[in-house]
């Protein structure tokens, strides 16, 4: 009891003593200029008496203000930053304000050589401060010296109404920059507008070409021509939406009458188009299902075995490390023929060699934390055996794999992929790896086709790597990156190449993975498919998207022969999309979705709740895996004859 009392007394005393401790900062109302350093004096008082206690200072925003180990504040960027002061048993916080540096320069750019009356041009401006920083938090005032000749709006557009000289001024604080421009007589008296087709369907891309002509019928080449459109949809409750680009390409989303206008100053021309419904919708029929109701299902692969029969393998997710093998020769009678269990909790990915004899499954959640690959002998899918396990450099978990011509491309710990020679499947040997060198780089998937590895690298986007194609001299032993595309959201999760026969264009379809959808949790995924035109490898352009509201993209498959995309959208099921012809704009809005299916099952692992993982077309049947209900086979019915209306349940 005595000991207890002493302890309590000690605690009370300690608390009491600590409560009197106070950190004192010599100056709390601190304002610094960018680049300035200030030694901060901080000490501790105890009951008003200065002590020898150490005080450590930390910035809560080191990018703006950094406090070094001896307590000197370094101001890097403008803003207000909270500084935390700590001593044993006490803490205190205060702010340092870093003033925004004075503006030193306003740069004006993008000034056309010739500006013609009535033809709007847009100036760019950049504000630079004395610290050399580009300032986006301030806007200069833009003005014209003679508004009877030209005015300038806050977005930098110069609108001219007369010929003559005028000075455009950008001013901020005491800094200004001026540019003298001469508004010329607009030589354009007429515009000729041509289009490659007079009518078409929603989703078809039209190419307009406008030529500005002077009074003599000569082309005026250095004049900006602006394209715009308006329209009236056939469905009066729908907006006649579409997309027009300033290169003259146009696509309509809805059926209706659209008018495209090209203008240069007061001269303009227009053409009107009749846009019909795309009308490519078809029915999809469920043919069969290989139910997995006892655990989550992950990826799938379908192949023809050496015996001529058709087989599939599916993985399992957050479960017991099992992969299932199926006979899918008769898709209406899918039967589970074998399974294999490895030391894992998730078999996230499954891939099969071209001849079907070797299957590689990935491992995550191994009990010894050594994940990696398991290479299987699937020469007889009814009696699957393990060739080898392989975890060198892969212990962090293999999220995705691909097999191509005797090599496995295996992700390692979400940061890189190794290329592993499995020509002797019992003795796999890593021959190389591919890894970016960007800060915080990560990777989610890799897909190989025609000697090119398409990897999906989240914020580093899609990376194209020559692993035997020859385009950049690469090989599996020497992977060579030769093209890439990133998009601002940083959500790139999958990539699939698509060589469009109908257009000759080379697209790569980049897929997002986003959770949760907007601010809501649960199983609603977000994200969509990005259609990226890689025809010019040095200058890839994102041209279109396929997005399903309230659902998010996952994996997909392209049938180049029919130019059809089969995409899984988690809670949005499986989607079949017409990607024929040139791609531009919002593919869903254009009516390019052929059909969809939501594979909910009342007896599923989670009943009646689609969560579709991946899709593959095989011998005319669409196979897809659903996390909650296993393997499915469907058949997209042929297009119906025109003017034939079929109504069935």
């Amino acid at each position, binding site marked *: 009891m005595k000991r207890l009392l002493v302890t309590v007394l000690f605690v009370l005393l300690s608390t009491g003593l600590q409560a009197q401790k106070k950190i004192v900062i010599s100056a709390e109302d601190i304002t610094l200029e960018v680049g300035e350093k200030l030694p901060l004096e901080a000490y501790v008082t105890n009951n008003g008496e200065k002590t020898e206690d150490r005080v450590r200072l930390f910035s*809560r925003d080191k990018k703006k203000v950094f406090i070094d180990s001896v307590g000197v504040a370094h101001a890097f960027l403008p803003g207000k930053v909270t500084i935390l002061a700590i001593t044993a048993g006490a803490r205190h916080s205060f702010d340092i304000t870093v003033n925004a540096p004075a503006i030193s320069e306003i740069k004006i750019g993008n000034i056309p050589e010739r500006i013609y009356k009535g033809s709007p041009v847009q100036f760019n401006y950049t504000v630079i401060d004395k610290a050399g920083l580009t300032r986006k938090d301030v806007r200069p005032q833009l003005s014209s010296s003679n508004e009877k000749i030209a005015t300038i709006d806050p977005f930098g557009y110069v609108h001219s109404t007369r010929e003559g000289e005028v000075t455009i001024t950008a001013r901020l604080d005491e800094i200004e920059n001026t540019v003298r421009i001469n508004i010329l007589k607009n030589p354009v008296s007429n515009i000729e507008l041509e289009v490659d087709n007079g009518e078409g369907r929603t989703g078809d891309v039209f190419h307009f070409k406008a030529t500005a002509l002077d009074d003599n019928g000569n082309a005026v080449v250095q004049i900006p021509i602006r394209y715009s459109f308006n329209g009236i949809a056939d469905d009066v409750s729908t907006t006649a939406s579409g997309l027009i680009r300033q290169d003259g390409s146009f696509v309509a989303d809805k059926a209706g009458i659209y008018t495209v206008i090209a203008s240069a100053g007061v001269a303009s021309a227009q053409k009107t188009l009749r846009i019909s419904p795309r009308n490519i919708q078809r029915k999809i029929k469920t043919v069969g299902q290989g139910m997995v109701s006892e655990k989550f299902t992950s990826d799938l692969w379908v192949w023809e075995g050496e015996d001529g029969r058709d087989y599939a393998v599916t993985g399992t997710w957050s479960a017991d490390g099992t992969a299932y093998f199926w006979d899918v020769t008769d898709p209406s009678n899918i039967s589970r023929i074998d399974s294999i269990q490895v030391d894992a*909790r998730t078999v996230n990915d499954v891939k099969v060699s071209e001849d079907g004899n070797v299957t590689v499954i990935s491992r995550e959640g191994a009990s010894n934390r050594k994940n990696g690959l398991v290479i299987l002998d699937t020469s007889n899918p009814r009696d699957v055996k393990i060739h080898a396990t392989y975890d060198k450099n892969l212990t962090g978990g293999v999220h995705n794999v691909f097999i191509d011509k005797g090599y496995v491309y295996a992700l390692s710990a979400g940061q890189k992929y190794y290329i592993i020679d499995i020509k002797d499947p019992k003795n796999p040997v890593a021959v190389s790896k591919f890894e970016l060198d960007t800060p915080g780089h*990560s990777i989610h998937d890799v897909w190989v086709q025609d000697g090119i590895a398409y990897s999906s690298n989240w914020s580093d986007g899609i990376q194209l790597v020559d692993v035997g194609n020859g385009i950049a001299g690469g090989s599996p032993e020497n992977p060579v990156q030769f093209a890439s595309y990133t998009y601002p959201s940083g959500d790139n999760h999958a990539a699939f190449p698509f060589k469009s026969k109908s257009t000759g264009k080379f697209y790569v379809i980049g897929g997002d993975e986003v959770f949760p959808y907007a601010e809501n949790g649960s199983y609603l995924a977000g994200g969509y498919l990005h259609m990226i035109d890689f025809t010019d490898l040095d200058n890839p352009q994102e041209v279109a998207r396929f997005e399903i509201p309230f659902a998010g993209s996952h994996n997909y498959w392209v049938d180049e022969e029919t130019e059809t995309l089969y995409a899984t959208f988690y809670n949005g099921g499986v989607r079949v999309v017409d990607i024929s012809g040139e791609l531009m704009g919002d593919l869903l809005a254009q009516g390019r979705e052929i059909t969809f299916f939501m594979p909910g099952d009342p007896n599923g692992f989670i009943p009646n709740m689609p969560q579709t993982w991946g899709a593959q077309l095989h011998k005319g049947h669409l196979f897809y895996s659903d996390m909650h209900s296993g393997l499915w086979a469907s058949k997209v019915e042929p297009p119906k004859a025109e003017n034939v209306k079929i109504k069935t349940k």
Partner: protein
Amino acid sequence: MKRIVLSVIFAALFSVTALSQNYYVYVTAESEDEVSVIKFDGKKAETIKNIQVGVWPQEIEGPHGITVDPSGEYWYLSLAHGNPYGRLYKYKTGTDEVVGSVELGLFPASMQISPVTGLLYCVNFNLHGDMVPSTVSVVDVESMTELDQITTGAMPHGSRISSDGMKHYSVAMMSGELFEIDAFNLKVARTLDLDEASKGLVDHSTMDHSKMDHSAMDKKEEKPKEMDHSKMDHSKMDHSKMDMGGMKHSAFKPTWVSPHPSKDLVYVAGNGAAEVLEIDTKTWKATRKFITDKGPYNIDLSPDGKYMVVSYKTAAKTGIWDLETGKELASLDNSQKVTHGVAISSDSRYAFVSVEGKNDDPGMVDVIDLKTLKVVDTAYLGKQAGGIAFWKVED
């Protein structure tokens, strides 16, 4: 007689008190993306709540490390997997709502808050990365700001604060080092080569036998397999075939360090060497070696300083040691394979031991009575029970 009567009354009172108390721990289920609250009433252990963690329902984000702050108001959780960096989450105890998060390094794992600095120190395990030095993240938990990353060794694990709150200890699993960080100025103060420290104690010719607890060694003579030090002879190992990335590859393979609650001692689990080393932090030298079962992984010391409880990951057992005598009081079978973490109740009465299992085995928490040295009960939770933190005991 009077003494006996008093003892009986005291025992009865103690028994009533113990029975009327409820103990609560937080445990991670690393392959389920869940944290479970386990309640133990002295007899029965049960999961009373499962808290889903992370934001990606279709990715396992791997809740690994967990700690409750000294005030018991908040608990903190490290999610190992990100793109590529993991995150630290802050939850309110009781309501278990998320109140903040911050990105840390690669595979953030174990952590603890210093009651003196108020800062949280979390090792970035980088478990599956290259053999390169990783870091300890230092976080201001008030604003959930990462203040600094302190470079230590390859695959740092175990992250514990000294009883005075002024020193942080961690070990580097692959480079075989013990790191002491000044929790205040955030600099590495000292490092210790644990392979060498271990060898130093094995070398009997240079040891002062008078200070050795031979009784502990006597016991170990009954287990000759575990005393077979020839297996640790590096000169006989073919290191040429090992991919060490230019860095030392520790055979000792330390996975945990726990400071003594009142003495200048820390205890380091040598997962590869099947031993626990006692390090005197005044002399920075190993002073005792506890030969353990296979795969000692985590350690916790009872707050009264009497017991050391060690999870034997490979052996699927838990060892309970008397720190004074250096004797292993019991080696108890756990309920399944892959024993992971240990948390001892604030009254030094019970040890809560998480057990991962394999494949789709449920995670388990075995509750061990440190008086009777028996497993009292087992609670079940999601797959791969790992990080474990004692929350509170209440009447």
